[in-house]
């Protein structure tokens, strides 16, 4: 994987401006390194045969055709969807922050589109909700290939604004998507804690499989600032003149406490939680998604 992995690095990804291309680049780059085909379906309705390609699951080889023709064909099934994945992307103001090639919003959007692309490639139904304090854009769950455009538009339309209010959003999502499925939350989680935890719990209660990608910038996690600095809140109206090094310890402590709390709440509610740095290559996210997807499949 290392050869292809470098294309998944945020710096490489950031050079591709179109979100769709970017997603394709990420997903294809990711998949090209896998020895096992990610494509699999669990439909009853047979759709067509396709010539076997290395990496296809041998279980799907149609041995009858092989017996007649001495050729390997795999069976493909017509299936509307076997997974409903809803992507919840935080587009609030706080997501605008970024010190690397991609800010949190761009990173989150790239993740979302890449996941959508990946899901659509394997016939999963994908929906997307972008939100800040309210839902800014929402696309229904679809599994058609052209649905990716709708998702991209939803994300692109949503310039990040205003403060996040997560419980309301999650509640709304729970209401909007009553069928069980996978909910992928991509956010910096700079929200009111109770609302977050309650929202996650609600989703779990509704039977959703919840995956949280906690996107944070390096500077937010490490706080490397020196020299007199004026910090102006992206969401809060506060501003603070300070010597950042004097506050670093307290900041990291408060942040650590918060992360622990979130992590604990996620574990408690069996929410799959991953803290992602915007400097990390994007494949980690995809790998996480896929393992979760598989797990879910097995659970199902």
């Amino acid at each position: 994987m290392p050869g292809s992995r470098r294309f998944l690095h945020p710096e490489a990804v950031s050079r591709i401006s179109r979100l769709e291309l970017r997603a394709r680049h990420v997903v294809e780059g990711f998949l090209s390194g896998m020895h096992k085909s990610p494509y699999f379906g669990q439909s009853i309705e047979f759709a067509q045969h396709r010539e076997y390609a290395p990496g296809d699951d041998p279980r799907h080889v149609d041995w009858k055709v092989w017996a007649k023709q001495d050729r390997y064909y795999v069976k493909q099934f017509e299936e509307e969807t076997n997974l409903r994945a809803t992507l919840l992307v935080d587009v609030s103001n706080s997501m605008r922050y970024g010190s690397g090639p991609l800010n949190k919003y761009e990173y989150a959007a790239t993740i979302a589109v890449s996941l959508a692309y990946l899901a659509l490639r394997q016939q999963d139904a994908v929906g997307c909700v972008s939100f800040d304090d309210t839902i800014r854009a929402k696309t229904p769950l679809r599994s058609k290939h052209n649905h990716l455009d709708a998702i991209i538009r939803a994300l692109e339309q949503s310039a990040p604004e205003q403060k996040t209010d997560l419980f309301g959003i999650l509640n709304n999502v729970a209401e909007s998507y009553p069928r069980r499925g996978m909910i992928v939350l991509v956010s910096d989680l700079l929200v009111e804690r109770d609302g977050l935890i309650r929202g996650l719990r609600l989703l779990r209660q509704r039977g959703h499989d919840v995956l949280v990608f906690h996107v944070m910038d390096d500077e937010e996690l490490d706080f490397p600032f020196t020299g007199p600095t004026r910090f102006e809140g992206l969401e809060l109206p506060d501003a603070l003149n300070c010597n950042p090094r004097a506050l670093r310890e307290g900041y990291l402590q408060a942040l650590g406490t918060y992360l622990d709390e979130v992590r604990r709440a996620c574990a408690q509610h069996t929410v799959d939680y991953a803290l992602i740095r915007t400097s990390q290559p994007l494949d980690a996210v995809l790998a996480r998604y896929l393992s979760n997807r598989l797990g879910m499949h097995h659970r199902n």
Partner: protein
Amino acid sequence: MPSFVHPGLLWGLGLLAVPVIIHLINLFRHRRVEWAAMEFLLVSQKKSRRWIILKQLLLLLLRMLAVAAVVFIVAQPLLNNQWGALLGGSKTHHIVLWDDSFSMSDHWADTTAFAEAKKVIRRIGSQAAAQGQGRSFSLIRFSRAALPADSKPADLLAVPLDGEFANRLSGVLDNLSVSETAAGPLAAIEAVARLFGAPEGENRVIYLISDFRAAQWQEPAELERRLAEWKPWGAQLHFVDCVSAARDNLAITALRPQPGTLAAGVELFLEVSVKNFGTNLVRELPVRLRQDDSQLPSLVVDQIAPGATETRRFPVNFPTAGQHRVVADLESDPVAIDNFRYAVLDLPLSVPVLIVDGAPQATDARFLALAMAPGGTVRTGIDPVVETPSYLSSKPLDKFQAIYLANIENLDQPAIDALENFARAGGGVAFFLGELSSSRFFNESLYRNGAGVFPLPLGNPLDLLVDRLNKTPDLDVSDHPIFSVFAGERNSFLGTVTVERYFSAARGWKPEADSPARIIARLRNGAPLVVERKFGEGKVVAVLTTAAPVWNNWGPNPSFVITLLELQAYLASPPRTTGDVHMVGVPWKLEVEAAAYQPRVEFRLPAGGPVTTPGAALSGERVTVDGTVSGAVLSATLTDTDVSGIYEAELTGVGGEAESRRLAVNVAAEEGALATVDASQLAASMPDVNFEFHAADSFQWTSRDVAGFSLSSGLLYLLAALLIVEQLLAYSASYHPPAREAAR
């Protein structure tokens, strides 16, 4: 309150605002960051806000203190009050010892060494005055310190350094000019201990401001001893050299009459000596001469080698009796004061001489008197008085310059005593022997084994054997002054003198090496003929033959007159003149007969300073002194003899008639030697003395000079401590940039 060496630098305290200004500038120079995770930042800030503000204030305070400490260190604070005294500083006494000997009049460009010294003293004074209370200042001139202890030795004596001090010092300095004395540093150094004693609770800073001439500082053993006495005082000693280089200088070192009869109308020779103190050969040097108020032709000294003295003689002739003035001077050079030399010649109308003849016919006396005063137009200035031996004991002999005794047979004891007293007091005595003379009387009464006035023991009178084949003159003279006039003359009249009879010296007599007697002329056979000796202050000459042509043919010979006049000149020398011997600064003690004069004496002083010219010799101020009578002597003393020149005392006789006396006061010419010693030579010659050597133009005040307890070193430690604490606090307040790897 502490005082400061450089109080002007306290304006630097304005720099205290710098840390505040930097802080304010940093407020505007904040990097702006739009920050998402404000929540955690605010939590952190809320938690540590007080502590951070406290640290920041402390840091600001430390930085301001550090700036203040730097400013104070540069301004050099001093503690003068009782706390300072406890810490080791206390009152400070600045003592300036100021060389005002006339070598300080050394001038170059538009300044003199003395003016440079004044500048240094003003600088010391003003800077010391700026240091505030607890300080005093003394100014002692070398010339004043050399005066007797009862006179005022210091121009400023432990004067407190208050607000009025600068004006006071300025007033004193403005009125002072270089003295004409050759006063060395020793008296001033001694005066410090005499005037102030050991310092009790006061710091002493002593400045010795001089030109450091080699003559005084080359071998300063005594100076070193005196200066080393100050060591236990802990006094700081600064030598300030006012002269940048040694310049060439010429001085007239002597102006005096040559031996001869000093009388009115008699030509007299004076000699003038010029010394070249420089390092270059001097050629064609004119010496201007003045006799009373008239100019004499100048002498020209063809050349004077470096360090050498050239003496030339010149004739003067004063037709009238009285005190006459002679002045010699040179063209201007770096030191002008020693270019003048003054002499006063006290010329009587004639010089009285007593001739005592033992024989009633007085043949010898007549020959002597005739030779001394031939009469007619020839003037010798000698007034011979012929008397019998009884005159010696019956009349005072003081008025005679010399006494001639011829053909004495006997003298009574009072006459012998009078004669010996006369000789002891400086009078000249000459003996001529004759037929009446007896060796017994001379040996027993006048020689007395060397204790008497006669120079040798006599034997019997002998005849000088005539040797026709021997052409050697009978007289064999030495190079004694009496006979020097005959020296080198080939056909001297002396050669024609024959001696037939003479008194021999006692058998076996020979003047010892340490004996006062000396044989100055011998006979052809080697027997002594003329013998001299010193007796007290006077001179005694014995001629062992007759004055009249009885035992010889000398009397009619022209050489007899010449020899006799030379003998008279010799006996009368040193001439009773005033002049060369009286130095500047030495009081003039005038003693006259009390019965003849009124006690009030008015002295007229010459104008002082290097402007002194012969014409202005008596243009100075007048000083009236009431004399004191002691016995028959009226004495009046003039102490103010600080300038060279001719002084005059005006006496008033009891009858109201005016009379004047004159005195020539001269400078010590050796002071004109301008060679100097430098710091390394001084240090080498005075290893026991700790001093700092400064050139006048670069003399710099340092905090050590200024008294009081210097806080600078303490502040330095404080500054170091402040900076260390500041760094620790800054580190603790996270103002230090992190290591690079920690940044990311």
